[in-house]
């Protein structure tokens, strides 16, 4: 060993994690180091740059930034950076700049991976600076996404534009033109300045010009009065989800009780040009199922883009569910235009992943129809059958395959008046038969998509009120939640699927996200939560303290990590032109993913043990 390598080795030896290495490993590292000098102020790593070495600061200091330019971290002599990009096998996400004259030692990726694999202490150090590996893996991803790190108030650049509700349409249009805005808030005239409504460019077209209203009509006649607003400290992505959910393009932004501005669709699309919102706005202009199906490639592209931009699974799941909902709504609008108005009010119901806002790219359609109690099968069912068939066929054309279990509004059993639905739920909860529940538990995630959404809400309330008082029902549901086990063997080895077609792979939905959301559903119903989304359910579960000392953070991180790996592999499939599925082969996972997946599966396994204990579920049943 030459003298300069001894010099390098002795320097490395002084700092963690190298201080934990044996002399033999230290020598290997010291012999392979390459060096470069960076003047203060110069860039060491650019965003998106390919990286092939771990960076060790021999002297000087650097600053690490988020991609939006915000300061993230400062590092000095003996510290390392670049390990995340190396572990994830991807380009640099956190750019690095020298703030002093800096000398960098480069440690080659190949050697870094060997160290990581062979030296537990080293691996732990480079992966985490807080105790939970899974937690930091999840946080790391989210911090990379601008939609999730930018607050809404950053988007508000202009003063609020508003007009009194007695103003005429022409005055309102004049004000919007002068101010160059596409929406206008309408305020009360009682001096309170409270916002009572909103009008948009689109309203002027569809509610004024199309209807031939006079210019002197007061704005209050056409404004939307059920205004959906958002707090100013919400994240940009939350605004995006709210717009997707309610199909609105403008949201008043509130600080405490005061409205301080309006954020528009275009403000958010500026953040993300291929955004799912953009597609949703297109969906509503399409005139047939065939035209809607043309948008499928764009929906897939939006999915891939969100994955590549490090969106979290809640955001991806909600965005894709939002697109699915919009397809459904538009198909219903088109069907009504053809079949005429419905003979009695109805609510179109989504069940399963769409209802939970946890939809990904490949998914079945699970839906149902809740009809007004004035429904008379002889008179009305022909209409609703046709309506359901059109939506179901249209969804199939848009890539949402028919439900093999027949959970669709085309099935007369799932096309019933509200009173019958209430009876269904009451029976399931009061007289639980695990076998019957197996097929119907999909309805314990439900959401109104179109029509009389209040029908769906009353069913949600019924379930939330009743289920928590029925231990037998919860036990039956818990038993079903133990049917699918995570794919971990005794020695933390992966257990592969054995169904022939997917030998040597793991089904991340069947073995990961699905059993986990089953567990979460049982706890949510036990604590009377009305939430449908698993992450929202976990918040309610934490508040109820039903899990004892645990707050459910481990469940959330496990769900997030598995979902994101699943999304990432589907995105890779799409990019490579393959048919995406839920199966991954362990050899296609990065080492980092493998390790964290094992942690996540262990969380599921423990959660199932807890459920088994809590509800005294014995194996034979």
């Amino acid at each position, binding site marked *: 060993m030459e003298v*300069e390598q001894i*010099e390098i080795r002795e320097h490395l030896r002084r700092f963690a994690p190298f201080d934990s290495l044996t002399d033999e490993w230290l020598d290997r590292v010291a*012999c392979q180091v390459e060096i470069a000098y960076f003047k203060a102020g110069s860039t060491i790593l650019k965003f998106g740059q390919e990286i092939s070495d771990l960076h060790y600061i021999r002297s000087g200091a650097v600053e690490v930034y988020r991609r939006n330019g915000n300061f993230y971290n400062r590092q000095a002599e003996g510290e390392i950076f670049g390990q995340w990009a190396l572990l994830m096998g991807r380009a640099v996400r956190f750019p690095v700049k020298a703030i002093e004259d800096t*000398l960098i030692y480069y440690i080659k990726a190949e050697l870094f991976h060997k160290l990581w694999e062979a030296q537990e202490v080293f691996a732990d150090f480079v992966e985490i600076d807080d105790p939970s590996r899974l937690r930091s893996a999840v946080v790391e991803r989210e911090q990379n996404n601008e939609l999730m790190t930018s607050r809404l108030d950053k988007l508000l650049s202009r003063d609020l534009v508003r007009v009194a509700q007695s103003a005429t349409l022409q005055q309102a249009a004049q004000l919007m033109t002068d101010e160059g805005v596409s929406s206008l808030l309408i305020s009360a005239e009682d001096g309170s300045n409270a916002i009572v409504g909103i009008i948009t460019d689109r309203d002027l077209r569809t509610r004024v010009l199309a209807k031939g209203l006079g210019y002197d009509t007061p704005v209050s006649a056409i404004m939307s009065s059920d205004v959906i607003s958002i707090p100013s400290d919400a994240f940009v992505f939350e605004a995006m989800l709210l717009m997707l959910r309610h199909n609105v393009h403008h949201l008043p932004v509130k600080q405490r009780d005061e409205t301080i501005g309006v954020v528009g669709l275009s403000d958010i699309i500026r953040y993300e040009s291929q955004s799912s919102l953009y597609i949703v706005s297109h969906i509503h202009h399409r005139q047939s199922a065939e035209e809607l199906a043309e948008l499928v490639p764009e929906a897939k592209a939006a999915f891939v883009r969100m994955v590549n931009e490090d969106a979290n699974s809640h955001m991806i799941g909600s965005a894709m569910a939002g697109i699915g909902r919009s397809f459904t709504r538009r198909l219903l609008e088109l069907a009504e235009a053809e079949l005429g108005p419905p003979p009695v009010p109805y609510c179109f119901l989504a069940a399963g992943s769409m209802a939970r806002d946890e939809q990904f790219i490949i998914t079945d359609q699970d839906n149902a129809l809740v009809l007004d109690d004035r429904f008379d099968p002889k008179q009305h069912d022909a209409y609703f059958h046709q309506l359901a068939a059109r939506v179901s066929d249209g969804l199939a054309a848009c890539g949402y395959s028919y439900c093999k279990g027949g959970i669709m509004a085309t099935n007369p059993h799932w096309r019933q008046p509200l009173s019958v639905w209430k009876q269904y739920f009451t029976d399931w909860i009061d007289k639980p038969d695990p076998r019957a529940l197996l097929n119907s538990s999909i309805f314990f995630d439900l959401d109104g998509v179109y029509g009389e959404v209040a029908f769906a809400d009353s069913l949600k309330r019924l379930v939330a009120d009743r289920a928590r008082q029925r231990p037998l029902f919860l036990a039956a549901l818990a038993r079903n939640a133990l049917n699918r086990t995570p794919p971990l063997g005794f020695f933390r080895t992966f257990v592969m699927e054995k169904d022939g077609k997917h030998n040597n792979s793991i089904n991340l939905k069947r073995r990961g996200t699905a059993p986990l959301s089953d567990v979460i559903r049982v706890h949510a119903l036990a604590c009377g939560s009305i939430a449908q989304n698993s992450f929202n359910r976990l918040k309610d579960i934490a508040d109820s303290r039903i899990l004892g000392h645990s707050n459910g953070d481990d469940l959330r991180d496990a769900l997030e990590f598995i979902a994101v790996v699943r999304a990432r592999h589907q995105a890779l499939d799409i990019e490579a032109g393959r048919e995406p599925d839920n199966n991954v082969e362990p050899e296609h996972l990065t080492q980092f993913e493998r390790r964290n997946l094992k942690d996540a599966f262990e969380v599921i396994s423990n959660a199932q043990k807890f459920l088994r204990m809590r509800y005294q579920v014995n194996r034979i049943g």
Partner: protein
Amino acid sequence: MAPPLPPPEQTLPIDTGLDWQARFAQLHAQARDPRLRAYYGAGMVSPQTPLSDVPFAAMDFETTGLNPQRHAIVSIGVVPFTLQRIQLPQSRHWLVQPQRPLLKQSVTFHHITDSDLTQAPDLSDILSDLLQALAGRVVVVHHRTIERGFFEAALQLRLGKSIEFPVVDTMEIEAQRHRQSSMSLWRRLLGRRPVSIRLADSRERYHLPYYPPHHALMDALASAELLQAQIAHRYDPDLPIGRLWL
């Protein structure tokens, strides 16, 4: 605390007319010794080559004294590098038998003693390896008279032939800055000590870490880092090498 660095400068008032590429072609045609023929045959970059594209080799000799005619080389260090990376794993180090006895005084400098050298080869035995390590690269030294003078003298002695090669001298770059500028004239007029341009002091001005001196490989590495630092602070990486080599 090191004194502040002077503002960057883009040009050097040094001879930029040298075309080492053409000179190497000539020397290649003339060379008889196969090792020198191979060395010149590997060619040299053109003077227009931007600094960022130049392959360099930092070289340092430890010697028994300062006079090439009376003293001899005892060790050689070579570190290949570019502006982007110092390729330390490819560095080379040789101890060589001095043809003149070691002087006591120099032993205290570089800690190489006669007993270390009894097993060492003669320079002629490692010459082809050394020339191969330098082939196609611009040599970087701190204080060129030592390396050039001793290399020439050693080859005269063994082959009866001299050697020519382009050199970037990191000490010269510091001297241009600190000894010949109008600032340094003022310093002299004011009776202040001139700024030190020794390797360790020069490195300190660029906030480079302290390395123990007087080991050929360490010093070669030290000058490689110093040149990266000098170029980062003073020059454009697009500056042609012809403006810097001597």
